[in-house]
């Protein structure tokens, strides 16, 4: 084939024209030269194609040619860059080690926080088509309920229970509905002669629908076996293991019988353990014709395209078919459809199955992790900048030999990435070690198997990439942009001068982060202490509750036996404090027209009130309960105050007045309106529920005879909880053989109310310590490095008469200003966020300004101690040592 010179030349021109910075004039000059070279090679006897190739070789712009192939070059040079990077890490191994540790710890904390946030926000997402699945809730009075009452509550027959569910299923937009109720407390389950205490038992009369809805997987047995006949049961794998031993799979357990009380159930299957991040957990599901409760938890699957708001409206329109009584009930105020995945973090319904999570805590953890990450990145950036300033000659030489800014940036970024990727094995080991401990601390079950998932490692890899890039990009860009000559000049290492450089900015930023984190931790702990120390209106210590299951005979004997024990002061019935909120009632005071709907009704006996030390306006009379009437009704201070401010009725005038509970109800036989009661006294507010909630009106009825004694309230003194529990259990076991011994200590109840806060407080303390460690390491290393670099300066200052004392002062004054700047930044931001968090509590501490002072003082001491130690080490040396070579 003939060589087409014109075509080749055109192609060559097009290629050259693409190169950045080639002017048309320059290109014309090169083209002209190309002609000359080409002709000369032809004259030498070369073939046209070879002559042209050679001419191109001679003419093509060398630097430009490099640039056009820079990506290839970069790959070619990668081993070299890696070698240089590795050599640099080795040369300054202590600094590199600190950087490595900080990066590893930073990445570890972020990975942990990400796993936690992912765990908390992925609740119930394992359910197939969870986007279309909802829990049905009801609004009644001003409260919302997660349990939907059956048409005749406890009295509903199985047909009534099912007809309500089927009516839900017939609502346009709903394609499937299922219901169950869960009994969380322990129940005795018998397998042959063996007895087991089993918690979290579900009862359902819609077995097929329930299993299809949640998509649980059968390991043994099958769905039809369970669904076709009532009085069947399925177990989870771990419960099967507990009941039938490790080799339950080989035991042929399907078809075997278990017994609860006197009722037998046939085992129809074993399910794989449901994922831990579900809004309810269970060990056993019983298929019964009728659910033994006043309501059920109802779930609905919507048709594709149906919206929750439309379906809620449809439900309201069909309420007459679903629950005819409710349709006429003026207190009913609507139906809720809660997306399944929103239940854990965004539900404020009564009677939740598990304490819901709080998205604010996820933000807090996310913010703390981000702060630690930023601290890590700041550390790296700062150290890298100072260390790389020492490498300015290397950068200069690279540039002289033709390295572009991009290549220099590439080298430094590669070193940052090298370090951050080296930290990945450390992070892996750290996660493997910490995860079980973290789970125990945070009450999560983030499974170690997650560590084997590729997805996690992709995220960690991306995290390492991000950290490496964030940390190294800034110093790399700053250094690579300096003109070559400047790189060869001395005095680039920063001195203690007044200019606000990037390094100072970063240290100031670190101070701000530390002050913010410390004060946040202090505030969280202050609020927790406040909640623990607050007078709740009753005795917290020395109170134990034992379940009596509303069995008055059992209670009376138990009380009599317990009170024989010397350490037991008194035993009462009910008065269960430190619990989740429950339903309120409507009421109207005699002589007023207003009906309120926010009163909690509390029932207990006189002895329980004594045991709890509830303060009343009639303490003297109550002291001798034998002389008291069968019942005495008291209202709390909040309600009394409301009547005082609203209607001007003072405390004395309230006594003897009648309050009608549920005035909307009229007795069909007697025509009496509601349930009237006489106010006989006032009691001081008791904080029965979490301090997140404002104390609301309460109507307390004290009984002489035990009134539905669900709990026995035991006040004891001079005994350890273990001893008193043992004594109570012994007595209980003698009296009752059919019910398990269930007890609670009041202090436990209160701790549980603030479990989330306690966990967050502990985590924030750990994270703060890590942050301090990271910051301290960074600061020590930075100061050490700067002081090494400034050894000569320190030597000369000493020769000129500066004392060690003055040298220390000089080095510290610089940090003092940075601290003030950090404080100015941290205070408003922390104030804002802490205030937002505290607003979630009805009873909260005020934000004290001194806390910021303490946080600043802690940060300052950390800084001063580290800086002084390093500077002092150098300053105490003889000046001649510092003035030697090698600075």
């Amino acid at each position: 084939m003939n060589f087409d010179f014109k075509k080749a030349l055109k192609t060559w021109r097009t290629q050259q024209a693409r190169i950045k910075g080639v002017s048309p004039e320059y290109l014309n000059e090169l083209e002209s030269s190309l002609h000359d070279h080409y002709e000369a090679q032809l004259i030498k006897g070369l073939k046209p194609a070879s002559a042209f190739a050679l001419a191109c070789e001679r003419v093509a712009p060398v630097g430009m040619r490099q640039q056009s192939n820079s990506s290839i070059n970069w790959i070619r040079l990668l081993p070299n860059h890696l070698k240089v990077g590795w050599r640099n890490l080795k040369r300054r191994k202590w600094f590199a080690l600190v950087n490595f540790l900080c990066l590893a710890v930073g990445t570890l904390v972020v990975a942990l926080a990400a796993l936690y946030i992912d765990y908390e926000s992925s609740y119930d997402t394992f359910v197939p088509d969870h986007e279309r699945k909802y829990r049905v809730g009801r609004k009644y009075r001003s409260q919302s309920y997660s349990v939907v009452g059956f048409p005749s509550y406890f009295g509903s027959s199985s047909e009534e229970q099912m007809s309500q569910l089927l009516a839900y299923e017939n609502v346009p937009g709903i394609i499937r509905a299922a219901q169950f109720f869960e009994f969380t407390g322990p129940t005795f389950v018998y397998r042959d002669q063996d007895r087991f205490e089993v918690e979290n038992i579900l009862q359902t009369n819609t077995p097929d629908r329930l299993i299809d809805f949640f998509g649980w997987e059968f390991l043994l047995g099958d769905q039809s076996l369970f669904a076709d006949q009532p009085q069947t049961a399925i177990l989870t794998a771990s419960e099967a293991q507990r009941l039938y031993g490790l080799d339950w799979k080989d035991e042929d357990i399907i078809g075997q019988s278990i017994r609860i009380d006197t009722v037998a159930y046939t085992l129809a299957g074993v399910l794989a353990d449901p994922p831990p991040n579900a809004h309810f957990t269970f060990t056993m599901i019983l298929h019964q014709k009728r659910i033994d409760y006043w309501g059920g938890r109802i779930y609905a699957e919507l048709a594709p395209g149906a919206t929750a708001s439309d379906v809620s409206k449809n439900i309201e329109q069909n309420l007459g078919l679903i629950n005819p009584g409710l349709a006429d009930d003026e207190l009913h105020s609507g139906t809720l459809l809660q997306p399944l995945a929103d239940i854990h973090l965004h539900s404020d319904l009564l009677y939740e199955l598990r304490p819901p999570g709080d998205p604010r805590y996820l933000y807090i953890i996310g913010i703390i992790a981000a702060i630690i990450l930023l601290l890590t990145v700041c550390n790296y950036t700062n150290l890298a900048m100072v260390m790389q300033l020492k490498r300015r000659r290397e950068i200069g030489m690279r540039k002289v030999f033709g390295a572009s800014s991009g290549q220099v940036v590439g080298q430094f970024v590669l070193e940052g990435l090298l370090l951050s990727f080296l930290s990945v094995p450390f992070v892996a080991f750290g996660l493997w070690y910490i995860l079980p401990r973290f789970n125990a601390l945070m009450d999560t079950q983030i499974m170690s198997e997650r560590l084997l998932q590729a997805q996690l490692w992709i995220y960690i890899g991306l995290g390492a990439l991000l950290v490496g890039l964030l940390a190294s990009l800034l110093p790399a860009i700053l250094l690579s942009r300096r003109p070559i000559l400047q790189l060869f000049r001395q005095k680039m290492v920063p001195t203690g001068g007044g200019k606000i450089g990037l390094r100072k900015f970063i240290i100031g930023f670190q101070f701000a982060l530390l002050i913010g984190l410390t004060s946040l931790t202090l505030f969280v702990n202050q609020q927790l202490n406040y909640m623990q120390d607050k007078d709740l209106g009753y005795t917290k210590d020395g109170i134990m509750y034992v379940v009596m299951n509303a069995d008055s005979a059992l209670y009376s004997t138990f009380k009599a036996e317990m009170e024989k024990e010397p350490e037991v002061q008194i035993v009462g019935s009910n008065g269960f404090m430190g619990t989740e909120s429950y339903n309120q009632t409507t009421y109207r005071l005699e002589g007023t027209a207003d009906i309120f709907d926010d009163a909690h009704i509390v029932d207990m006996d006189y002895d329980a009130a004594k045991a709890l030390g509830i303060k009343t306006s009639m303490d003297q009379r109550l002291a001798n309960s034998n002389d008291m009437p069968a019942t005495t009704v008291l209202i709390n201070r909040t309600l009394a105050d409301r009547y005082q401010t609203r209607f001007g009725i003072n405390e004395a005038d309230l006594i003897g007045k009648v309050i009608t509970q549920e005035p909307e109800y009229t007795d069909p036989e007697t025509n009496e309106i509601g349930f009237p009661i006489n106010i006989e006294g006032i009691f001081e507010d008791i904080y029965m529920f979490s301090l997140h909630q404002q104390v609301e009106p309460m109507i307390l009825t004290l009984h002489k005879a035990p009134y539905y004694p669900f709990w026995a309230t035991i006040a004891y003194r001079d005994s350890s909880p273990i001893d008193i529990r043992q004594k109570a259990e012994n007595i209980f076991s003698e009296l009752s053989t059919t019910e398990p011994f269930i007890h609670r200590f009041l202090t436990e109840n209160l701790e549980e109310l603030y479990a989330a806060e306690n966990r967050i407080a502990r985590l924030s303390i750990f994270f703060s310590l890590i942050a301090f460690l990271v910051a301290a390491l960074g600061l020590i290393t930075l100061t050490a490095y700067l002081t090494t670099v400034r050894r000569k300066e320190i030597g000369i200052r000493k020769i000129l008469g500066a004392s060690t004392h003055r040298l220390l002062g000089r080095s510290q004054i610089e940090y003092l200003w940075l601290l003030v700047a950090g404080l100015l930044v941290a205070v408003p931001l922390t104030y804002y966020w802490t205030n937002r968090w505290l607003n979630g509590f009805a009873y909260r501490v005020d934000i004290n300004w001194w806390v910021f002072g303490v946080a600043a003082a802690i940060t300052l001491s950390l800084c001063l101690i580290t800086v002084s130690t390093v500077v002092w080490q150098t300053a105490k040396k003889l000046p001649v040592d510092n003035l030697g070579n090698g600075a």
Partner: protein
Amino acid sequence: MATRALVAASTKPLILSILSHGENYGYQIIKEVERLTEGELQWTDAMLYPVLKRMEAEDLVSSQWVKLENGRKRKYFQITSAGTDLLAAERKQWIRVNRVFLYLWGMDRLDPILAK
């Protein structure tokens, strides 16, 4: 091989010297340098043209495109009076340095004219 520094220092005087003998173009200048240094200095077009451009900006050389017989164009460079002046100054410096070296290395007898 000439060192990088020497190449950098000698480029401008070499171009000026070649042009002092008459106008010339890029390819020929490169060849001329190659011939005179017996291949010791190997310039490339990519290096030469930016230098010439800078020298033109400094008014040391001037240039013009000339149309050849075969129709293509070639750029010819001429030395300017400022270029001539600079060359004279450069020549003095190079001779002085050369003289010192010759003397120091005992080679002044070999080249008595320069050694004066």
